[in-house]
């Protein structure tokens, strides 16, 4: 587990060529909160893509511990000439097929998430977007295509602190959520929705024709990067469902639906055994839950904002 690094130089401040050299030689460490990742790569393009979405992250000291080690290198031989590719390796394994050489960033993000899901078994990793306000975490667990990432991104651009787009990382010992702060991976129409919603939002390049269609990564806000070691107590759970043309619907969830949404949609629930079970029971007892069906993003956010004081009061009362 990573601890707060002490470095003032950020990735965005660094000259791209100098950074590409560091990346190729010693590699580069990114501390995303609950975990730190070390990556090496001979792809100069990857250096530039990393800088576009991790600009506010400090450069880590080489000596610092990294939980996950990855390499992303260009394929050798003739594959450098014909449809060039990049290959991801972790612990000597190649868990994914190579990606086109112009798409190292999505390969890195998927590889990183996969490794975090495999490795981080001291935390319960719920498959959920997670944001924070008033020291409380709002979880957005959902199946792909539900609008989870779009809603998480929109919240993070309207005053909620992004903890993670992919992981609700719950620490069973402290009873708090930790940040796994990586760029929000938006797909297809969601990219334009968020560009329109927040024209100043910082995106990396768009990658068309991936397995999930077109993907673009939204950089985390500077405040979220600065505060990535701050934990958040459980607040509430919202199960989002984007439905074209639907009016906003906000309905309370029963405890058993909430339990299923958390436990049966987690990355490592079964690995954690009884600890995972007790953690989810604790969250169900602690957190009110709602289903949010929406098509209008502004209206969805207003609905969450309107419900939040009730959540804050309930959690405040429970904490006293």
């Amino acid at each position, binding site marked *: 587990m990573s601890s707060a690094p002490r470095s003032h130089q950020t990735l965005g401040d660094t000259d791209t060529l100098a950074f590409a050299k560091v990346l190729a030689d010693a590699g580069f460490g990114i501390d995303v909160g609950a975990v730190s990742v070390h990556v090496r790569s001979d792809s100069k393009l990857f250096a530039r893509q990393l800088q576009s979405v991790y600009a506010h992250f400090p450069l880590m000291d080489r000596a610092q511990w990294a939980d996950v080690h990855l390499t992303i290198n260009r394929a050798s031989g003739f594959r450098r000439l014909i449809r060039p590719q990049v290959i991801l390796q972790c612990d000597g394994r190649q868990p994914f097929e190579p990606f086109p050489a112009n798409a190292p960033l999505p390969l890195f993000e998927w590889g990183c998430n996969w490794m975090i899901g495999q490795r981080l078994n001291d935390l319960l990793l719920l498959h959920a977007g997670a944001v924070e306000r008033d020291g409380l975490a709002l979880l957005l667990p959902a199946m792909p295509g539900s609008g989870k990432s779009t809603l998480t991104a929109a919240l993070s651009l309207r005053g909620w602190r992004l903890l993670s787009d992919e992981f609700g990382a719950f620490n069973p010992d402290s009873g708090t959520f930790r940040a796994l702060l990586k760029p929000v991976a938006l797909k297809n129409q969601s990219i334009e929705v968020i560009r329109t919603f927040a024209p100043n939002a910082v995106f990396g390049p768009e990658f068309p024709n991936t397995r999930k269609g077109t993907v673009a990564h939204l950089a985390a806000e500077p405040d979220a990067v600065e505060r990535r070691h701050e934990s958040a107590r459980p607040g509430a759970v919202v199960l989002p469902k984007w439905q074209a043309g639907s009016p906003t619907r906000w309905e309370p969830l*029963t405890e*058993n*639906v909430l*339990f*299923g949404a958390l436990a049966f949609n987690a990355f490592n629930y*079964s690995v954690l055994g*009884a600890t995972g*079970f007790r953690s*989810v*029971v604790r969250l169900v007892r602690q957190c009110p839950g709602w289903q949010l069906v929406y098509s209008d993003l502004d209206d969805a956010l207003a609905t969450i904002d309107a419900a939040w004081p009730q959540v804050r009061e309930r959690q405040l009362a429970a904490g006293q």
Partner: protein
Amino acid sequence: MRRWGVTQYARTEGILAEPIGDLWAVFCPTSGETSLLNNESMAVLEVLEAGPAGTAAICGALAEDSGESIEALEGLIEACWAQLIEMGLVRELRVPRTMLG
């Protein structure tokens, strides 16, 4: 009931159960699986906490607690076994008559 003995059921040790809304979340430590059970299945597991028992004994215990007739309970309980065994929450024991005292 079989010619050579009777069937009893034993609850798997170390099961964790918590009420979740109108269902029960039950964690089985041997399989690592979590299941959601209704009240009838959970009642069977609670009776089995005292030790292995057959359908008749369980129906007797539950009839006493619930006021339902044994006949009405028998169908419900018989329907529970396959699922509880598949979930790893109980196991079937074939007990020779001579061991039943």
